[in-house]
């Protein structure tokens, strides 16, 4: 029976102390909104870079008149490396056919070339988890030392910058989320602490009348949870509005923005995060109850 009563007390307090609670809700909502923007940014970069390993390969361009033995040696050395998924030999004729196919309607520009200018090559596909700048560099260094290799290409700078962005964004994102969460817990902590002090006499009376700790704590925890939940819902409305007013409209004129993903899970995540942060803040604010 104490449970519904705790809800009544919490509801009364939320209404009675509406201004301080409103201020906390808005501050927390802003914090959750920034957190959500960070999470969405990191998430989108993560999704964009996840497909990178599938498209990534190291191309080994072979010298002309390579002996079968040299070719075999290169193929085997590449295949035996732990980072390598598969190795594929592409003759210069095949390469020309592929080029023609990719040029489609403008393949006539190749007509003036006469002899096939392309080189035989080996495409080295890496395992997904091995597509990292340091692994690729190591493999490239190892293979470029072999006899018969005329050139090697793997988009070193592109790979490095993508991974720097990915790692940097993730690190900044995590630091930002931790700081924001701590800040939001502090906001809720401060609010509940103020309310707790204001109700000090009342709480003392509860204790003297025989109230257990749960009876005293419950209304404050509920109040913290409600503050957090409302803040979470507001921040969700905020991020949804931002998405539809900015990203969605921009994507109509700039196709790049179409690639931005808005995970629907955030509709649950934000209110839930607010609820937990609110409860944690309140629990810390109440602290240990002594008789």
């Amino acid at each position, binding site marked *: *029976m104490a449970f519904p*009563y705790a809800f009544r007390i919490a509801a009364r307090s939320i209404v009675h102390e509406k201004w301080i609670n409103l201020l906390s809700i808005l501050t927390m909502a802003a914090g959750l909104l920034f957190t959500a923007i960070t999470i969405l940014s990191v998430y989108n970069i993560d999704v964009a870079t996840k497909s990178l390993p599938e498209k990534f390969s190291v191309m080994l361009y072979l010298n002309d008149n390579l002996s079968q033995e040299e070719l075999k040696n290169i193929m085997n050395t590449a295949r035996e490396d732990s980072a390598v998924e598969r190795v594929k030999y592409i003759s210069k004729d095949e390469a020309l056919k592929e080029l023609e196919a990719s040029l489609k309607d403008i393949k006539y520009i190749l007509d003036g070339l006469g002899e096939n200018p392309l080189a035989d090559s080996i495409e080295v596909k890496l395992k997904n988890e091995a597509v990292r700048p340091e692994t690729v560099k190591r493999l490239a260094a190892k293979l470029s030392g072999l006899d018969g290799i005329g050139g090697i290409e793997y988009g070193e700078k592109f790979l490095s910058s993508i991974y720097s962005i990915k790692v940097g964004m993730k690190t900044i994102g995590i630091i930002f989320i931790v700081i924001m969460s701590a800040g939001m817990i502090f906001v809720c902590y401060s609010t509940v602490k103020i309310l707790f002090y204001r109700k000090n006499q*009342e709480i003392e*009376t509860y*204790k*003297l*009348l*025989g109230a*257990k700790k749960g*009876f005293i704590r419950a209304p404050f925890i509920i109040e913290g949870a409600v503050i957090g939940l409302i803040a979470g819902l507001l921040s969700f409305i905020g991020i949804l509005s931002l998405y539809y007013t900015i990203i969605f409209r921009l994507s109509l004129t700039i196709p790049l923005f179409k690639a931005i993903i808005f995970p629907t899970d955030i509709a649950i995540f934000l209110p839930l995060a607010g609820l937990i942060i609110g409860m944690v803040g309140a629990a810390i604010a109440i602290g240990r109850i002594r008789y």
Partner: protein
Amino acid sequence: MYHSSFHFSLFTFHFSLNIMIHFHDVSKYYDNQTALRKITFSIEKGEMVFVTGPSGSGKTTLLKLIYLAEKPDEGNISVAEWETDKLKESKIPLLRRNIGVVFQDFRLLYNRNVFENVALALRIRGVGDKELKTRAFDALKVVSLRHRSDSYPGSLSGGEQQKVAIARAIVAEPSIILADEPTGNVDPDTSAGIIRTFKDINARGVTILIATHDRELFRNTARRVLRLDNGDLVGEEIA
């Protein structure tokens, strides 16, 4: 006063002797001031006892030691089946639920109406809404305040507030009632009425300890009176 060695045996065997409250050589100090010095006494189950003395004699401290708002610096206290020095902090609410306290400053919640103030003692004990309503109104009837149940304490006179505090103390039917100057704010007629109420409750077997400096309150009541002076238990008599 009992001889101290006799008290020691009482302390050990108080259950069999039906003792509800027992103090053994209890002292309490605030900074360098002595609030109570080597106090020893017992109150049996169903007794109604007065503790009297001038202001600052230690009456309130004595009551606070019983409901554990304070802890003794020396000595032992037992209340009902609990020896308070051995009581875990988590059990303190259970002890307090056995005691109804009428505080000197009432300790009413001024943002709740009279009914809610009285019902609070039952809510804390987890009593359901239906039973809670009946019992809270019954307690208000006992103190003749049923008609003020919707009023807020701030709109009541000092005497009426005192009655609300009494209703809250009795509503959960505790085995012990402690009243600190329960007639401090009321006229003689109301005062007599309050004592009659306590006598009625006592007649049901509830142990009652009333702290008062008003000698008129216990005159000719034929009840035991403990006399405190400057922290010492200086005498005991039947009024």
